[in-house]
């Protein structure tokens, strides 16, 4: 037993030592031996832009109480409640008080994208389809602009809703809601996301 045991111990101790050495060697190989000599040319190009929403847009898009259905192109509460909004050629009343602004502290023009997270949904899980909520945008606003005839239905994927908004410029928004006849009486809510991207980039 003693002699055989000694042989076994010697063989497996040798295997153990070999494995440990090879493991350490693997580690060194992974780390690598590369040496380089380089000279560099440095240039830093930065792109920056900032956006914000008007106060009424920040507070959410409200449609108030609808007492009789069906309705088509029901105005959002803030579609026409702005006073003295500065626009092309002067100031305007009854313009929209919902807009997105590109900060003057930006070095690129901006495109805006918009999407809804889901259909307008009540706490009882009744829904008003996402395509029933629509919007229009324009770089100026007055009693008619953005036009309801330019309205586009919202979707759950981002789509461009403002193009090439200049530094310091605004993208004015109006929203409308269609409510089908069979809609259950309830409070309906969803979330709209607005994303600013550098002009030309995808949403």
């Amino acid at each position, binding site marked *: 037993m003693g002699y055989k045991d000694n042989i076994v111990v010697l063989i497996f101790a040798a295997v153990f030592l070999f494995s*440990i050495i090879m493991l350490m060697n693997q580690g060194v190989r992974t780390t690598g031996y590369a040496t380089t000599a380089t000279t560099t040319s440095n240039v830093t190009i930065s792109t920056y832009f*900032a*956006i*914000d929403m008007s106060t009424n847009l*920040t507070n*959410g898009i409200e*449609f108030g109480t609808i007492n009789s259905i069906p309705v088509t192109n029901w105005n*959002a509460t803030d579609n026409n409640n702005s006073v003295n909004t500065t626009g092309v050629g002067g100031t305007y009343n009854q313009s929209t008080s919902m807009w997105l602004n590109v900060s003057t502290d930006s070095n690129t023009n901006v495109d805006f994208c918009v999407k809804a997270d889901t259909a307008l949904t009540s706490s009882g899980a009744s829904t008003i389809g996402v395509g029933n909520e629509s919007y229009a945008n324009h770089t100026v606003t007055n009693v008619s602009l953005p036009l309801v005839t330019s309205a586009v239905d919202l979707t759950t994927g981002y789509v461009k809703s403002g193009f090439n908004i200049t530094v310091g410029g605004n993208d004015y928004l109006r929203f409308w809601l269609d409510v089908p006849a069979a809609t259950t009486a309830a409070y309906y*809510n969803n979330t709209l996301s607005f994303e600013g991207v550098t002009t030309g*980039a995808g949403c």
Partner: protein
Amino acid sequence: MTKKILITIVFAFILMISLASAGVGLKITQGDIKINEGQEGCITPEAYNPFPTGTNVQVVISDELKDVLTEYDSEIKYLPPETSSAEALPIKLCFKVPEVYQRSYLVGKVIDKVDCTNQPMKEYKGDIILESTPGGTDGAGAGGSATRMSVSQPLVVRVACLSSGWDFTFAYAFAAFLSAGIVGLVLYRRFRTPKDVRLKKKMAKLQAEMKGMKK
């Protein structure tokens, strides 16, 4: 008169608060990154808010990059008001890049090697997004839509392939573990009985051999 002034000041204050808005700004100086597969890396976009109200923001990546920038961890950071682009705050986003290149395997998937020949560098395009916290809605009547905003800039991730020969790390570790176990077992069996018992057994064995020799 004093009461009237006080009411005017309170009204003006409320008006100022209601007119104040928070914004988000994103400054990128690194629109593309190159990283070796299997390694960890970080990018540091900068956030700023040149508007009158502070806001909480978080950096996330778009869905297109979620397969290649895994285990990423981003912090929520408060952006103070009136932060200019020159004072933009860095927000570190660290991640791990998984193994994306084709491998050859031995013994199931225990031993592998990577041959980068004929495997062009993989490039992933997506966006880095700075999100603000959501706004609210009164939700009266037919309800309405809460709003939130974000800004994004393109990010290109190039994953470099690192050629390597057969990686026997697991095999060596297994051999070391197995041989250590066998050596330990043999030594345990040898030394588990007390020394005097072992000597007595050895003595008895020798005596038996001597008897055999006498015969």
